């Protein structure tokens, strides 16, 4: 397995498209941090203008943690697309290039190849989230300093400086899980087609449609909403409740894990039965 995984990682990290995600995040995150450093207080004042009528805000509130929290909230807008660039291509790319014939005529089980490819795409996904975490915290904290994290949702939660870091680490772990769900869906679609465009577009379309369904408050959708992975991708926010809402967090994480397991199993069955005709 390790040999096949090393081979798959070598292929993934020899492709230009693999680095598009790292470059995009490498450009986007510093821009957001710089913008927040320059205009963040205005943004924060605007976001809290109603609250300021009743409360006084003091201290370095537009700090590195706040920016990292904002950036993590943006994760679900652009990172899924970056994730699918690799996981949508990892199987379909072999079909496009005709190289299924090369790998499936080696003395390696198909299940081993599929598992190695899935692990490679998951590793890429985790590295992408890690890269975002490193940039957000690594640039944000030295540039904007630390301070209490003010989380404004339906309620205001103020998290003390010494209580923030572990929440972020756990939050990035959850974010990785959410992105692994997206990657697994793209991986499944990648096994069905012979062109990487299909899995990328289909996965993004599913995210958009499911997000809309999750957002529309119609009783009909109440039954399906809990099962939609998009409804749980933001579950990392439970880590920033005080106290942490572990029950909801674990439920959401379980839904994501179930999606990952289902996609992986379906891909395995498809690939094991697939006649290689390309």
């Amino acid at each position, binding site marked *: 397995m390790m*040999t*096949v995984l*090393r*081979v798959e990682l*070598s*292929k993934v990290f*020899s*492709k*230009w498209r693999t680095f598009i995600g790292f470059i995009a995040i490498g450009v986007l995150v510093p821009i957001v941090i710089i913008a927040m450093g320059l205009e963040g207080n205005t943004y924060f004042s605007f976001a809290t203008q109603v609250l300021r009528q009743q409360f006084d805000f003091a201290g370095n509130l537009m700090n590195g943690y706040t920016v990292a929290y904002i950036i993590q909230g943006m994760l679900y807008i652009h990172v899924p697309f970056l994730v699918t660039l690799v996981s949508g291509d990892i199987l379909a790319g072999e079909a496009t*290039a*005709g*190289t*299924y*014939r*090369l*790998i*499936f*005529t*080696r*003395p*390696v*089980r198909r299940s081993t190849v599929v598992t190695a490819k899935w692990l490679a795409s998951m590793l890429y996904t985790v590295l992408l989230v890690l890269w975002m975490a490193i940039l957000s915290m690594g640039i944000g904290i030295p540039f904007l300093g630390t301070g209490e994290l003010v989380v404004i949702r339906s309620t205001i939660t103020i998290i003390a400086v010494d209580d923030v870091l572990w929440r972020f680490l756990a939050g990035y772990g959850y974010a990785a899980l959410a992105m692994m769900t997206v990657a697994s869906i793209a991986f499944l679609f990648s096994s069905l087609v012979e062109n990487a465009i299909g899995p990328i577009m289909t996965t993004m379309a599913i995210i958009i449609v499911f997000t809309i369904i999750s957002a529309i408050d119609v009783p009909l959708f109440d039954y399906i909403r809990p099962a939609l992975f998009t409804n749980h991708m933001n579950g990392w926010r439970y880590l920033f409740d005080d106290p942490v809402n572990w029950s909801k967090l674990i439920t959401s994480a379980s839904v994501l894990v179930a999606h990952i397991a289902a996609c992986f199993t379906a891909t395995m069955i498809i690939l094991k*039965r697939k*006649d*290689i*005709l390309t």
Partner: protein
Amino acid sequence: MSTVIEVRGLRKVYGDFVAVGGLDCTVEQGDIYGFLGPNGAGKSTSIRMMMSLITPTAGTIKLFGQPLETHREAILRRVGAIVERPDFYNYLSAQRNLELLGRLSGADVSTRSINRVLGIVGLAERATSKVKTYSHGMKQRLGIAQALLHNPDLIVLDEPTTGLDPHGMKDMRDLILALAADHKKTVFLSSHILPEVELTANRMIIINRGKAIVEGTVQDLLNAGKLRVTIGVSNAATAASVLGTAQLPHDIQIADNALIMMLERSEIAPVVQHLVQHGIAVDSVVPVRSLEEYFLTITKEAA
């Protein structure tokens, strides 16, 4: 001598379409085995089933005496193959492609070992070039290199000369002959290019519509049936009418100072004798038995 490939009743059906309709064939150790058939005969589908890329609808495939279904990994460790086009990871160099594929086959992937096989196929000087810069012929040779890297006992080549120029085709033929003679490999050579098989294989099968039509040694198959005989004569039209009145071969083509006809070997002497007795000067008799003639005849009969 042991049996390397044994295929019995191999079938592949897609809906109503029968791609392979009950193929039987046997390849012995040391053979260069020609696998012939017109386009669409089921050659590539058969090879894909032998290489476990396609699941057969029915039938058995044994390689090295073991069923492919239950001993896939052990068998594939001893097989090197090019299945149809020589596709590679174009964004990697030839050396890197071989290294990655060799790892999957459990081969020695040292630079020395890789350069050795690249040397065999004449690509050592381009080892570090990305495959996307390779010509089709170079990719075909790289295909051979990847098939040889793990030193397999059986090499399966599916249309290895497709797209090659005459020099490339000759190089490929020489390489195939050398693999069998010098490296003691068994070669399964699929082709629709008849001279390629005629010049390299010792045994062959002709398939059509996914079924074997004939199987045997190339020499035996060449000697079976009628020959195309060209008889050089002084006056072709007169000679043809002489033969026509004698009710000797009716299917006679008249060329410049020659008659061309299909004859059994035993019929050649009476025809020549008849012509001479009727005052027709015969200056040459050229019997030709080509695989192409045989192939066209036999596939037409099967159709």
